[in-house]
Each structure stands twice: as C-alpha cells, then as structure tokens.
C-alpha cells in the first residue's frame, strides 16, 4: 500500500496506559474527516492481559456509533469489502512498560546529562546512574551491584570525548561486565556504548561475550558538542523491539494491519513537525506537549529539526509520587488555591496511582490535579530544553523559553480538565511561554493518531488537522520584563474583523482576557512599555499583528517571566484564585 492509493477509510487504535482510543477517519470528497471516536479502558494489564480485548471493544463501539460492520468473527475486516470494514488499520501504542535503563558515565553534568537526554528519545525510565564521581571505597563493587540488582533492559555507557582518556571508561566497563556476568543469561542487559570512539573495539571485546552490545556515535564527541541522534534512534528501536512488539495480544492486531506499530511519541512528533512546516513562522519554534497517565512527551521543532523528549514515569497518575519523594511536597502545595495538608495531598497521589483512569469529582481534587500538571510539565521541560539547538533570534532570553508559535497541548492529563481556562492556566504556569503564541488544544486527543496516519496518507492527516480537531484556546501574549504590580505594561488597539475596535491596557501581575471567538481574526496594535518585549524581537518594540480567536479569546499573561509566586501562603492562594477567576476556571 502506498500514499497514492485511495484510502476511503482508516481506523486508528491509540493504546495508552489507561485508555484505548479508536478513531475512524473517512474520505469526504477531497478531504478526510473524523466519523466516529470511541474510548475504552486499555487491557494490556490484568485482569485482561491482552491489548486486543480493549481494541475489539472499542471497534464494537465504533460499529454502534456508525451502524457499520467492521468486525467479522472477532476479526477486523480489512481491506474494506463494500460497506463493511476499513481500508487501513493503524496501531499506535504508549501503554506498555517503558525500557528500564542504567546510565554509566564519567561526569554528571557532561556525558551523563547527555546520556539522560538521549534516553528520553523514547519511553524509558532511568533506574540507576553509575558514575565516576563520588568517593566510594569500592566503586567497582557498587557499580557491579547496581547492574546486577537493577537488572535493567539496557545499560547506556557513555563518557570520554573522542580520543580522550580510556582508563576511567574501561573501569566502568569492567564493573558493568562483572554485574552482567552475575545475572542469568536471559536477564542480562543489552549494552549500548555511546562514548569515546577509540574504545569501541575494547568495549565490544570485553562485553560482547557476555551480552549483546550496540555501538553508536559518542553523545559527547567534544566537550562543547552534544550528538544525541544515533543514541536516540537506537533507544526507540530497542523500545519497539523489546516492548511494543511484545505487548500481550499485539500479534492479533498485527494480523489486522499492514503497517508496523508506532510509538505514540513518534506519531505525536510527526504532527509537531508538520505544524512547524505549515505555520512557517520565521524565528519561532513549535512545541507539542502530550501529558498522559504514565508519561509526558515534549516535542519541539526549530528550523525544521525535531527534538523529542519522552519522560516515562512522569505522567499525571504514575510518577507524581516518585517525583514528590525527590522534590518534596512543597512545589505542589504552592499551586493550590486553598490550604491542604500534606497527608491529604499524599493520599490523593496514592489513590491517583491506584486508580489511574479516574477523574476528580471534587473541586479540591481538581486543584491538586492541576498542580500536578504544572509540575510534571516543568519537570519534563527542565530535561528537554537543554537539548534544543536554538539560534539567537529564537532564544533572546537565556533561561526563558524561546519564541514558540503554536503550542500544541494533548494528552488526557490536560485535555480532560473541565474548563478550557484551567487547561490554559496550567500550561502557562507549567511552560511559561514568552511572546506571542497560539495555544492549540487537541480536544479529542487525535494528534498522535493523525501523526500515524501521516505515515501512510499524508493528505488525510493534513486535512484532518483542522481547527475542529486542534481547537484554538486563543492567542496568548506573554510580555517579558519586570514592573511593579498594577503598572501598565502594554496598550493595545484591537480591531475586530467586523470593524469594531477596542482600546485596552494590560497591567503587570494580571492575566487579562479579551473576547475573540474561535475562527475570528483581529488586528492588534501593540504598544509595550519600553522595558517589555511582547515577542517582537526587543524590549519596547511595538507593532501590528494578526491574531486568531479561540475558546478563551485574546489573552495577555502580564505576570512577568519568570513567573514568581508570593512567598506568603495566604497572599499566594489569593492571587492563584484571582488568576483562576480571570481565565474562567
């Protein structure tokens, strides 16, 4: 099957950690439209232990919605037979166990940091780090013990610039060899070597008799150079082989599809890449965030280059507890607009893990959920951002976000929030974008599915990525600068397309929202205060821009960057309540 073939109908199964979504895409004249969507619990885990059970239930729901026959004898009819069945079936998957890794390297801030970023190319969790740093009395024993006791899927060994010193890396390799040899052969980790190029043959010789060894380019070939691509790609390939293709019941789905399954992150990345090309905003990148139950995916595209970062074990349900163990409870508490004791907060996080598919029924639980969203986004960005190779025009303010337009928001963790204002506020607080940004919400959570479709029928994906699919929350202007609370930092004349005008001002410390309906365009004349950059390249520079409306309208986030919350708890809660009120949350 090739992209030129006419595909009248495409069925996409998106199997997440807690939910399996089924989407039916059909050709309507020259474009493609969503005809039906169903969502059921994912059945990878107990009591079902078979991903195809949930997929079959979801297809049955689509049959019910469309009154069409898609299954015959429990099997998907493909290719289409008259009005029955579909022309193509695609599976994307994120709901499986991530790859468990141990990272081994010399310097935490250098090669090990690069290794960590390389590992985030797909669904991985880092179970342990063994490093030359520290003052262990018997480091080789501790390193070997870490490998033996953690028994990861793979050890990623990095370290040493190309042509640099050998001994420290070989000492690590010796200990890894020892730890590996102490495991039964079926449990031995794969060794990925991405360090000093001159040691490749020695490493392969040392470890090759014990386990499988994969060699890729050095992630840090020189002190100031990071080269993640090959290690990234290898991690993705291993995830596909060791996890995705071994999901219980996946062979049933393989039997229905001519296309290899994709990871959800890869599919989502394609959409972000497509948006960058579609929008063609010079000097701006495109950011995609997919916050799921068990992972957070950050996809960024600058100058046509995609940077992918998947944070396994950092989702809205699985991950916050472990995160709290590392960072404490205070970072979550600071986002709550009402007082809440630590025990209640911890109980919430535990129950969220025990029942990952559930939704808040009480407002207080909704606040906690949104606090988790903010911190998971901030945590994922801290790891993802240093890998972005951004030119000076896009990154004007080091330490802050580069100019991004649009930002695509997907995943149940955000999209399930009851009001669009809550989603917007959580994302603004979590990402702290600067300048002028259109916020797109993947309300039906179809973006990854369309990324998968793009691989077989780009036209279908492109035509389905319409404003009905990626709904605009509005245009957000986030000026960069500092002022006293209440100071006017931006004056605007909004000219609506019906000819009416509005003269407005934004005040420091406030979130201001002006009406601009979805699909409506307006011309906005911006006159920022001389100490503020509104996204036009420098402080004080004004200009006229075209903006598009959205569910919220035109938003000015005049709270300053970086965002600072009052230290006093009562003042902080008061201001949080006001911001929630401002965005209609």
């Amino acid at each position, binding site marked *: 099957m090739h992209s030129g073939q006419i595909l009248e109908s495409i069925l996409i199964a998106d199997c997440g950690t807690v939910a399996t979504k089924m989407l039916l895409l059909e050709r309507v004249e020259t474009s493609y439209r969503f005809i039906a969507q169903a969502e059921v619990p994912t059945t990878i885990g107990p009591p079902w232990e078979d991903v195809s059970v949930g997929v079959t239930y979801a297809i049955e729901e689509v049959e019910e919605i469309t009154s069409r026959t898609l299954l015959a004898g429990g099997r998907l009819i493909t290719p289409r037979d008259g009005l029955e069945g579909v022309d193509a079936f695609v599976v994307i998957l994120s709901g499986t166990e991530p790859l468990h890794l141990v990272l081994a390297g010399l310097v935490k801030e250098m090669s090990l940091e690069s290794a960590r970023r390389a590992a985030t190319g797909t669904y991985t969790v880092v179970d342990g780090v063994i490093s030359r740093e520290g003052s262990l009395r018997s480091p080789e024993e501790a390193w070997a013990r870490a490998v033996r006791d953690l028994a990861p899927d793979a050890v990623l060994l990095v370290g040493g610039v190309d042509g640099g010193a050998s001994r420290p890396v070989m000492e690590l390799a010796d200990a890894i060899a020892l730890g590996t040899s102490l495991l039964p052969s079926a449990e031995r980790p794969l060794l990925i070597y991405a360090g000093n190029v001159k040691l490749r043959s020695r490493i392969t010789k040392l470890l090759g008799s014990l386990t499988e060894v994969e060699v890729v380019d050095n992630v840090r070939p020189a002190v100031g150079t990071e080269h993640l691509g090959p290690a990234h790609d290898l991690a993705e390939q291993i995830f596909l082989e060791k996890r995705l293709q071994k999901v219980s019941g996946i062979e049933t789905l393989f039997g229905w599809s001519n296309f290899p399954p994709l990871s959800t992150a890869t599919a989502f990345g394609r959409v972000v890449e497509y948006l960058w090309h579609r929008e063609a905003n010079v000097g701006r990148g495109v950011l995609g965030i997919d916050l799921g139950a068990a992972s957070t995916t950050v996809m960024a595209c600058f100058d046509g280059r995609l940077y992918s970062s998947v944070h396994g074990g950092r989702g809205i349900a699985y991950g916050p507890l472990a995160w709290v163990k590392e960072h404490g409870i205070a970072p979550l508490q600071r986002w709550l607009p009402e007082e809440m004791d630590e025990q209640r907060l911890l109980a919430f996080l535990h129950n969220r893990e025990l029942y990952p598919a559930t939704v808040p*029924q009480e407002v207080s639980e909704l606040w906690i959920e949104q606090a988790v969203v903010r911190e998971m986004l901030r945590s994922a960005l801290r790891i993802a951002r240093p890998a972005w190779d951004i030119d000076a025009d896009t990154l004007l303010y080091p330490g802050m976000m580069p100019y991004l337009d649009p930002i695509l928001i997907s995943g149940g963790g955000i999209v399930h929030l009851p009001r669009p204002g809550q989603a917007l506020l959580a994302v603004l607080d979590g990402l702290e974008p600067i300048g002028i940004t259109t916020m797109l919400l993947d309300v039906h959570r179809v973006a990854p599915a369309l990324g998968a479709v793009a691989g077989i029928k780009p036209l279908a994906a492109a035509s389905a990525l319409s404003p009905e699919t990626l709904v605009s929350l509005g245009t957000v202007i986030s000026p960069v600068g500092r002022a006293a609370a209440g100071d006017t930092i931006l004056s605007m004349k909004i000219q609506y397309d019906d000819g009416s005008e509005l003269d407005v001002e934004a005040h420091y410390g406030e979130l201001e929202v002006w009406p601009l309906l979805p699909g409506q365009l307006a011309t906005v004349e911006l006159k920022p205060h001389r100490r503020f950059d509104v996204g036009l390249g420098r402080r004080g520079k004004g200009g006229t821009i075209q903006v598009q409306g959205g569910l919220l309208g035109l938003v000015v986030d005049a709270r300053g960057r970086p965002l600072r919350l009052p230290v006093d708890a009562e003042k902080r809660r008061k201001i949080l309540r006001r911001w929630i009120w401002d965005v209609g949350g």
Partner: protein
Amino acid sequence: MFLPYSVINPLTLIEVERRLPRAGEVLVAEGEMVESFQLVAKTTEQPQFGIVNIARELHLSPQKVKSALKVKVGAQVSAGTILATRGMLGGRVSRAPFDGTITGYGHGRLLLEAPLVEVQLNALLPGRVVRIWAEKGVTVQTYGAFVQGVWGNNKEGYGVLQLAVRAPHQPLRARRLDASMQGAIIVGGTGLDAAVLAQAADMQVGGLIVGGVSAELLPELAAVDFPILITEGIGEIPLSAAAFTLLRDLAGREAVLSARLGTHWKTERPYVAVPMPAESARGVDSAAPLAIGSQVRALRAPLQGKTGVISELPLDKMELETGARLAGAYVDFDGEVDFVPFSNLERIL
C-alpha cells in the same frame, strides 16, 4: 459500557498465579492437587558478592598479585580465610570478608560469592495446578470466596477471619486486639494507627484487612512481617459494604491473605480468599454488560469505597461539581442515589 472490575464474590472459580522472583525450578505437574503449604517451585536469591581488591590491600601491582594468592578460583572459603599474603612474618595478609566461593580473578582482585540461599514458593491456596509457567511458577485453581483489594504490603499469610469492628466505618483500635486473635486475620473498618500495628505484632496476628489507611502510615505497614490488605484506597476510607458484609459472613473460616502488589507494570491484585469444598463454580463473567442492577464501586472521593447498584443509565452527560460534563450512571448506595462518571466506577463481580 466496558468498565474495569474487582471481584467480591462468595463462591467463584479462583485462579492465582504463583511466580518465583527469578527463574528456578517448578516442583509440581499440571493437573496435580496441591495443599496450601506445599512447595510448588523453588529458586535461589541473587547471591551476595564482594570484590576483594588484593592489589590494594597488599600494596602490590595487579601483575604481582597472582603469585601472592593462597586460593584458586572455585575454592570455598570461610570468613577470615587467608586469600593472599605478602612477605613473611609481620607481612600483609588479605582475608575473606565472608563465607563463600571464589568465582573470579582479574586485575589484582578476587570475586567472592556468598552461598546461595534457597527461595521456596508454596501453593498458598489449596487446589489444582492448571498451568505451569516454565521455570517461573504455576497457576493454582480452586473454588471459594474471593475479595480483591487495591493495596498490600507484599506479605502473605493464613488465618481464621475475625471481625474487630461492628461496622465498616469504625476504625480499628488497638484495644480490640487481644491474645485470642493470635494467628487470625483481623477485619477492621476505616483505617488503623501505629498502636494497632504494634499491638497486632505483639499478638502475632495472621493479617489485617481495612478499607484505607493514611499515607503517612504506609512505610510502617510495609515494615511489619504480617500481611495487610487495603480494600479501597489511601485515606480514611471505610471498607465497602459489599466487602464488609461478605467478610463478616465468612468470620470463623480459614482464609488466605495475599497482600502482594507487584509494580505499576507487573500488577498483582492483593486479595483475601476463603477456599470452599465446592467441586464447581463459575468464574466471574467479565463480559456481562453493565445494566441497571449491576453492582458497582465508586473509586474517587467523595464516594470512594462505596458499593451500590446502578439505578439509572442516563443517555446525556451530566455535570460534576468540578464543571466537567461526563457520561456516567446513577448509583443507589444503600438508599442514597448519586451520579458517578463511568471513569470513576468499577463493576463488582
């Protein structure tokens, strides 16, 4: 509507997997009848090991260590055995830090592995072995009452079920635990405290079952050596009416309590089972459609842990206190009817 489910059932077909922590040997055959305490598989723990850096201890270069060694690879040694020496009287000596076997030598270092410790796996439930997992374990099938929980402290045990509260909303108190409860599996209600744990350990109870516990107590629960089963969730949550009623009816019977939890990705549901001398019973019908009258449990606050029956399945989505509009069901919780979104419900089978 396709919902997840938990089993709270007075008589059903029970199948439990008994898995070794690492590859080992299965000791029974498919079709064999087994007793609770009967061994079904065994393996060994990961051996403890140590690297003895002879070169460093004797101040020798690694190349010269070999001539100083007093033991060979494969030798069994006791703690204190001389492994290598340098010089004559008054010279340096390197000794074995623990009992074990020398399993490797290189770069001036010896690898010493401690003796293997056997890990035994019993059947836990009396019944028939219906599946062998090669080198990993077995599936045992039996009939009886079965109550699944949501959290456990990864211990297992046996005992006679005894109630220590009159109603599921009552907290378990230390003063309710006395010497008559030695070896028993105690059914409490809403939570417990540190005093209960201490008293339960003193009385050597066989296990504890409660609806919920506070998050701060979880580390203490993990540390005790008897099994603890949480049926509803974390927090002050009563045992569900369905679970409490069934466990009350089963008081006085021998029960098996598995509080094994697994991990996020290899989940094991903790449970309490009471094997019955039945010869047949049907397994739960997980494919049965959700309908008016179906028994369900609410999974989130403010109704978390309550069980009831579906009284209405509205076609329209309903608005929650949070502002979310979701599909769901009206559930009759013992006379009080509430709307619960499907995402916060599970079926009780």
